[in-house]
């Protein structure tokens, strides 16, 4: 592991002119790619302060004139429900999802990765199978079950799976992580008289911290962006999270008010981008070791 962390450290020395040129070419090439890649992001950033007519016709990120009306329209929300309400809805779902994932995945993965009991291998096989299984196949019966339980139009269907460890991806990630922890640790603790619960809480949970942080960040971001769940289960506008709001707004007021639409879009992306900026070091390390998809 540590061998891969810093394998290519160049010792500090004077660089030759040829190296300088090479380095310059490298930077120019990457910056050029970067400009293209980040163009849509910059574009939305400034589109939010452009006049409506300017948005469609002016392809430059620099606005011809600046207006803050778009943000006024965005903060008004939709159908009399203010924007903060949708932020709050999104936040509640994301926070519950994070708590659910951390609690359920850590106990499920501890059992699957560190304990021995009949049926363990079969259960782990089910986890692996659901990893590649298209979720659409369970969508319809799940909907029927939730409507039988009378919880459609609540956030229950959106978060319950996370509390039951059904997110195969994170269970798998935690198991892989736990398997990397030396067996001697629990054996030593066992000899000292610690039971499995003690070992779980005092040894495994603290050591799982990197996995917990990575999974929390991704759960938050994925839940913040999730659209299909809210589309199927939430029908009252007061309960909409942001993606659902954006979609409805896009179909109604957004048709005439591009600016408001862009301002709302920008505001909805801010938490994800902020999250990313704060945790980016951790995130990219986490993906490289666990293979998370963005």
């Amino acid at each position, binding site marked *: 592991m540590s061998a891969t962390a810093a394998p290519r450290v*160049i010792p500090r020395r004077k660089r030759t002119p040829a190296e300088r040129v090479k*380095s310059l070419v*490298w930077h120019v090439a*990457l910056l050029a*790619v970067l400009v293209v890649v*980040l163009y*849509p*992001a910059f*574009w*939305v950033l400034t589109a939010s302060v452009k006049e409506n007519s300017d948005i*469609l016709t002016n*392809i430059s990120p620099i606005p011809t004139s600046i207006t803050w009306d778009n943000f006024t329209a965005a903060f008004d929300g939709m159908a009399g429900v203010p924007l903060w309400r949708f932020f709050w809805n999104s936040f509640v779902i994301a926070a519950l999802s994070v708590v659910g994932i951390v609690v359920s995945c850590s106990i*499920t993965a501890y*059992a699957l990765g560190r*304990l*021995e*009991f*009949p049926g363990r291998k079969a*259960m782990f096989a089910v986890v692996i199978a659901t990893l590649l*299984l298209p979720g*659409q*196949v*369970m*969508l*319809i*019966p799940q*909907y029927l079950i939730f409507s039988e339980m009378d919880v459609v139009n609540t956030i229950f269907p959106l978060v319950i*799976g996370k*509390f039951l*460890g*059904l997110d195969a991806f994170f269970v798998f990630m935690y198991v892989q992580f736990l398997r990397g922890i030396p*067996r001697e640790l629990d054996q030593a603790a*066992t000899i*000292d008289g610690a*039971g*499995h*619960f*003690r070992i*779980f809480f005092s040894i495994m949970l603290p050591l799982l911290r990197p996995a917990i942080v990575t999974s929390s960040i991704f759960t938050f971001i994925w839940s*913040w*962006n999730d*659209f*299909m769940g809210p*589309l*199927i289960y939430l029908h009252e506008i007061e309960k909409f999270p942001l*993606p659902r709001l*954006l979609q409805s707004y*896009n179909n109604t007021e*957004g048709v005439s008010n591009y600016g408001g639409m*862009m301002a709302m*879009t920008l505001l909805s*992306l801010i938490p994800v*981008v902020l999250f990313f*900026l704060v945790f*980016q070091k951790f995130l*990219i390390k986490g*993906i*490289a070791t666990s*293979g998370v998809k*963005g």
Partner: protein
Amino acid sequence: MSASPSTTAPPAAGEAGAPTAREKRGAAKRRTPPARRGERLVGYTFMTPWIIGSLVFTVGPMLWSLYLSFTDYHLVLGGEWIGLANYTAMFDDPMFGRAVKVTLLYVLLAVPLKLIASLAVAMLLTQSRRGIGFYRAAFYMPSLIAMSVGIAIVWKVLFAQGGPQDQIMSWFGWDGGGFIGNPDVSILMLVLLSIWTFGAPMVIFMAGLLQVPDELHEAAEVDGASKWHRFVHITIPMLSPVIFFNVLMETVHAFQLFGPAFIIGGTAGGPAWSTLFYTVRIYALAFVDLRMGYASAWAWMLVLAVGVVTLIMFRAAKNLVYYAGEDNR
């Protein structure tokens, strides 16, 4: 809480002395010492939420949807057993052909293009340069926001008639208008959106590239191998497990694209069904038309298709993927 195994564990492992984990497992198969029974109890206790959840929300629903796929169940009207009629009806359904065509086209375009872009940039970003962390983060960022509804809406504006894409392309003499209204090219919007998220596989490629021992490249360089030769004969084989992982995950996910396709094309996959993704059609059948039996048959066809593709990939990987440090049988 659980049975204290400090005194019982060593004798339980048998005559072999200090028990290693593997010996313990072997011993557990023969008899069940008290410590094992404790472990069992804890194991099942910890697994309880997952077991309940799987039965109620994954394994159960899978079997149920398999059953539904043999009925003409309608959310309001109900339904009854019709055997294979849904599956035969699919092949007469013009929408099925359209959805399959759109989805396959997307998979075949988006997956290779995205992976080539991500490998290329990953190779640039595994050199030791100043500001490398900034570039890595900047290239990764689109992956986090691209699948959001917000970006799909931005895409609609970027590719609108007279919008940025239309104007930029007209500089090069292309007067086809915005991609969004043009059924011949509208799928490219989604392909481009997918390529835009190349940062996610890129980071995985970077991790793989950093594992390739420098000595291999140095030795080949001494022997006079060109850059291209080293890429084909060292980088690609050494990277093949990572390539396999990325191809597999990207393909499986590409088959299931929903959000952006739904926002850009609507439930009808407009214009002229050119963005009618398979999952969008499943959604429309199940939750707009409420024909849940028929939609279940569609969903099972997707499972079969993804299953077959995955299987072929694993088969192919046996010959194509090189695992360093293992004898490749």
